[in-house]
Each structure stands twice: as structure tokens, then as C-alpha cells.
């Protein structure tokens, strides 16, 4: 029973990884092949979100048993005993990728804002966001 559960878990994880990389493929297509700057920015945000989910997956852990799913890395009491902490370590997921993803999300947001302002300026000055037409402009 436990072995079947683990096999199912692995299968689902592999599907998850495949769909994440499928997302990466779509967003890379958007970044490289679409001419509109706005679509490039949208594809870039999809790409960064996919990378963030991948980082979260790195910090995830398998279920110790079907009755004991992993828990978020938050201690629920303000005065934990040693037994509480041991139980917490045995069940909580890795907090480090979550913290790094938090950083990545905020920086991604700031960069996206800057790109949007740049695109807006390009549109105001040239009247288009098509990179092929912007590249053909003189002066």
C-alpha cells in the first residue's frame, strides 16, 4: 500500500515537473518569437513564476505517511518544547527556497514595473510596441 502510494506520488511529481517545463517552453517562445513588447513582458512573468514554483518544489518533501502530510514551516506555539520542535522538523517543508522565492518575486515585480515604464515610453515616442518596427526606425 505504502509502495503504491509512493509510486503514485512520484508519477504525480513527474507530471508536475513536465508541466512546469512545458510552461517554460511556452514562455520562451513568447519571449523570443513574439514581436510585441507587451507579450514579451507577459511571457517573462510566466517564465519567472514557473522558475519560482520549481524552486518551491526543490524544498518540498514527501509525505512521511498518508496520515501525516507535510506542514508549512510555522511553529504554532510561542513556547515550544524540545518534543514539539523534533516533531516540527520531521514534518515541516524546507523554508529556505520559500524565502529565496519571496526575494525573487519582489525583484521580479520591480523589474517588470521598470520594463512596463520603458515599453510605455517606447509606445509614446514611436507609436508602436512591435520590436521589428522599432528596430527599423531611424533617429
Amino acid at each position, binding site marked *: 500500500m505504502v509502495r503504491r502510494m509512493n509510486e503514485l506520488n512520484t508519477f504525480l511529481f513527474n507530471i508536475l515537473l513536465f508541466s512546469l*517545463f512545458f510552461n517554460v517552453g511556452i514562455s520562451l517562445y513568447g519571449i523570443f518569437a513574439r514581436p510585441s513588447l507587451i507579450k514579451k513582458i507577459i511571457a517573462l512573468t510566466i517564465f519567472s513564476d514557473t522558475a519560482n514554483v520549481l524552486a518551491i*518544489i526543490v524544498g518540498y518533501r514527501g509525505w512521511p505517511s498518508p496520515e501525516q502530510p507535510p506542514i508549512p514551516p510555522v511553529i504554532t506555539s510561542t513556547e515550544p518544547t524540545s518534543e514539539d520542535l523534533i516533531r516540527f522538523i520531521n514534518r515541516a517543508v524546507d523554508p529556505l527556497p520559500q524565502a529565496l522565492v519571496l526575494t525573487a518575486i519582489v525583484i521580479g515585480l520591480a523589474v517588470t514595473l521598470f520594463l512596463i515604464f520603458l515599453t510605455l515610453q517606447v509606445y509614446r515616442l514611436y507609436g508602436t510596441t512591435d520590436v521589428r518596427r522599432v528596430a527599423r526606425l531611424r533617429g
Partner: protein
Amino acid sequence: MRIKKLLVLGSLILLVLTFSLAFARGALGYYPLPLPRVRMLASWYLYTTLNPQYTNFTAMSPVAVAAIVWDYRGLDTLFETAVFFLAVVGALTLMRGVTLKSVLNNANNKDNNYGLSLISKTAARLLTPLIIAVSASIALHGHLTHGGGFQGGSAAAVAPLLVLVIFSVYFLLSRGISEKPMFMLWTAGLLGIYLTTLAAVFIGLLTGLNAYVFQNQPKFDAPVGLPAQISGTLISGSLFFLNIFEYLAVAGEFTLVFILLSMPEEVVKSFISGETYE
């Protein structure tokens, strides 16, 4: 042209399949997925995040993520705030000199001429204080539950965004929420973060003991630290203050950016083309 498209498609499919296979076969360092346990480093973080017995290692915060963000790897977050600052300054530089002062003084631009219907305006009036309250709660509980300064600040910036969409930018600016107060809020937040990172050093200077920049709890060779509790309430030392100041900074920054993004296009164009000066 057709061959080029096929080439792009083929290489993307190859990339997706290669990466999926590599990760499914153990590129994350473990086969088969998922990992049965967390790494040693993660165990250490989880064990010391709120552990009163290890006084020299603990961050005194029940949330391991908040402890990593502002204590264990606090310098990362400090420089992340700097990156955020620079990106928004870059965006502001593109919009330099653009104001709505001349348009605001025009009698035709009164609040009631703009915005959505009365229903949406009433709903927005009810929702805006609630959004601010929830965002403040996210930020103030950042050291106890999920959330923190960034998340709270982003949530708080939704309130002015809602007002911008439903009432118009003229309404927001006429109520005093314009560029300058938001810039001051942002600067006050950054200044607060700066002072909090130096708080332990100031205490060390006053008491004559060793202390470090960005120190939260007492360490072996630096016995000073910020109090983990105030009259029985856990505040996790510097985490509480850093979350509050980050909240102010992020809320100010986002509101500023939203105001600038919602400037009427003809006004901005007249500034860019050099027809208008303020």
C-alpha cells in the same frame, strides 16, 4: 520562414523533454521524487527558528521563512530592497517632471465627471478601509504567521489602485494622495529599515559591548540584542520593526508607480514633447 518556425518548435520541444527527463531522473539530487526529508541546512533553520534553549542561535520567530528573510539571510533582503529602490527610481526617471497640477486646477476636471457608476463607487468606499486593515494585519503579524512587509505593502497598494480605477486619478490627487506624500512614505520606510539595522550597534555603543550591524538576538561574542518580547508579547526583535518599515516603503512605492501609470496620456505626451513645463 516555414523551416524557421519548425526549427523553433522542434528546439522548444527538445528543451522541454530534456529538462523534464533530467529532473524526473534525479537532477534535483534525489531519485525518485519527492524527497523523503529536508536538507541538513533546512533542519537547522527549522530547529533554531524559535528555540529558547539555543539563545545564541535562535531568531525567536515562529515563522522560519520570516526568520530567514530578515535574520539568517537578512543582508540578501536588504540588497533586494535596494534593487527594488533602484528599479522604481529608474521608472520615476522616465516620468520626471510630469505632474497633473495644471490639469487639477482646471474647473472641468471635478471628481464627479469621471469614474465608474455609483454602485462601484459605493462598493469601493466600503472596501478600501477593509483592504488597508487586512494589509496592516498581514504586515504586523509577519513575524508570527505567513506574510510580512512585502506582502502587506503590496496588498495595501491595492486600495489606491482600486480608487484610481473606480474614481479616477483626479479624485486620488485631490484627496492629498499624490506623488510627494507617497515619496515621503517610501523614504520614511527606507530610513526606518536603515535605523533598525543599526539599532543593535547603537545599543552596543551605549553599553560598551560588542555588537554587529543587522543583529537581531544576542550572539556569543555580542551579548546585546533587540528584545524578543515586549511585556509577554512576542515581537521577535528586529523582525517586527523591519516588517513595519518595509510595509510603509513598499506601499508608498507601489502607490507612486500606480499614480504615474494612470496619468492621462495627452498630459504625459505634452510633457514629453516639451510643450509644458512646471
